[in-house]
């Protein structure tokens, strides 16, 4: 089997098909798309109007500047919307099966624990990706104004999709952990908030603590703690506003992570904030999927290590 066919076979999962049919037949599916595009469109139009009005007064803003500011605003707004939608879609995926009393029947089928988690994750994320894809024409229209190059356009969407995947995977983990969807959803929203806002605030605090504690830091410029450096908001900001990026050596990032002093390390390749963000979010996704698989597997009787079949006489 070719690598491409093997990749495709991963999507031949009955849960993906079933959840897809079930979700798209619901009245909520088109409503959510309408709401999403409506909010994004209204927000984009408001920013565009403000930018045009401002340019009339200042007479300095070009079409590229207007396009750039609208694109940046839209990208951040989309990231916020996706962070709001992802827990709602994924946090009830497994706990909902328990509440619907269909989980045991799934467990006695041939679908593996990984198959259940993978199917649920892809089914939830497919809808999020659909939302992002439906908004592409809006971004493409803004892209025509200039001010944003194609690489920035692609990286902004990569960051959004990877963040959606990470929040979805963490929400799925809570869905496997909790028996009911309500606590799973509340915890997932808290986790999403921490991933987007909490890491940035905590990273900034650690950055200032480090700067005050280790005076030598000042000699090497203002350096963000990796918690803030790999934050999706910061990564998005650097991608969209700083074409030259803000590369830092892996060694220096590790020094800053563990807040150790001394000369800045030049060990390892230089990484951009978006690379740190994507890498850490993919790692978080892998851990969340692994945790979910272990939790689902724990609901099944596991094979014993030693075989001990016993012939039993009929009792009458």
């Amino acid at each position: 089997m070719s690598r491409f066919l093997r990749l495709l076979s991963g999507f031949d999962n009955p849960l993906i098909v079933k959840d897809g049919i079930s979700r798209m037949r619901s009245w909520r599916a088109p409503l959510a798309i309408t709401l999403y595009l409506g909010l994004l469109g209204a927000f984009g139009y408001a920013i565009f109007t403000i930018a045009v009005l401002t340019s009339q007064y200042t007479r300095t803003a070009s079409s590229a500047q207007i396009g750039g500011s609208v694109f940046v605003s839209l990208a951040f707004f989309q990231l916020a919307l996706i962070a709001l939608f992802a827990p709602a879609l994924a946090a009830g995926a497994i706990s909902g099966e328990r509440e619907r009393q269909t989980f045991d029947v799934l467990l006695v089928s041939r679908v593996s624990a990984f198959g259940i988690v993978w199917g649920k994750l892809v089914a939830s994320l497919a809808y999020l990706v659909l939302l992002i894809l439906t908004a592409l024409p809006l971004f493409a229209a803004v892209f025509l104004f200039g001010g944003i190059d194609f690489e920035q356009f692609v990286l902004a969407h990569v960051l959004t999709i990877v963040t959606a995947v990470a929040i979805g995977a963490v929400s799925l983990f809570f869905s496997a952990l909790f028996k009911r969807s309500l606590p799973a959803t509340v915890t997932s929203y808290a986790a999403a908030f921490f991933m987007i806002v909490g890491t940035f605030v905590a990273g900034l605090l650690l950055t200032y603590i480090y700067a005050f504690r280790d005076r030598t830091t000042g000699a090497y410029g203002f350096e963000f703690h990796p918690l803030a450096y790999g934050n999706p908001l910061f990564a998005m900001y650097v991608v969209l506003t700083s074409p030259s990026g803000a590369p830092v050596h892996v060694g220096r990032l590790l020094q800053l992570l563990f807040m150790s002093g001394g000369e800045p390390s030049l060990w390892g390749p230089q990484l951009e904030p978006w690379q740190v963000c994507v890498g850490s979010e993919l790692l978080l996704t892998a851990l969340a999927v692994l945790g979910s698989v272990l939790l689902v597997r724990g609901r099944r009787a596991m094979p014993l290590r030693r075989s001990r079949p016993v012939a039993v006489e009929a009792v009458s």
Partner: protein
Amino acid sequence: MIAIDGLRKRFGRQLALDGVTFTVPRGEIFGFVGPNGAGKTTTIRILATLAPADSGTATIGGVPVGDDPGAVRELVGYMPDFFGVYDRLTAVEYLEFYAACHGVDRSRRRRVALELLELVDLGDRRETQVDTLSRGMKQRLCLARALVHDPRVLLLDEPASGLDPRARVEMRELVRELRRMGKTILVSSHILPELEELCTWVGFIDRGQMVAVGPMDQVRDRVVAGRRLRIDLVDAEEGAMRSAEEMLAEHPGVLAVDLLGDHIEITVGEGFEDAGLLAELIGRKVPVRAFSPVAGDLSEAFMRLTEPTEERLSR
């Protein structure tokens, strides 16, 4: 086909199963009877690979459940005591989904789903959304779901609970049909007269221990000292009733004869041959209109076996 030996399971301080041992021969319908909390569902969940036993062994078709749960899942169709259904899926899509989950080849899924819908008499509902089906229909659909991979063993946990009488009869006929198809069926239920009519083997469980297991007739005879039979005559005229009474009283194995207005009821001992008595009655020209066991024997057996005793209460 199913063999359980010394199964123990503890939930915290509560001993749910205490050395449960029984076998179910191939092709039999095994009625698993016991009061609430006796350990029926725990036993069924262990057989369905949904829970591990603390000790003891269980094999299905010779495959140890604890050692090779994957192989056991191929052999077993499980119907839990609740029926979860998905919203916005039609009956045929619902079965196709589970067929896919059980690894049924894509090209066969639709045919399998349609055949099963016909089997459970839901062929005309195949495009109906499952959440709009009646309770009885959902229950039959769930039975069809347990059959998508053509398992040799069916584990049915309270399949008739909450069903109206008509739906119960339909479910009973369906289970009989499945036995004719060669399935071995373990069915738990609280509706004892129904189990009595349906099952060929029975096992009583109480407080995690098996208190009686075996073929239905043997268990009933052993537990209920004196099984009862009802005999209706064509004409319930007093003279004919009296002569039948005398004849019955002389028949070996008949412990008591009661004239009850328009019919006669007799109490018979263990191992009594019903067919022999019927042949003798007909041979002696007694005008027999109906000859049947008195319903409720299993209920009586159930009550006797599960009544609290000092020994049980001390456990």
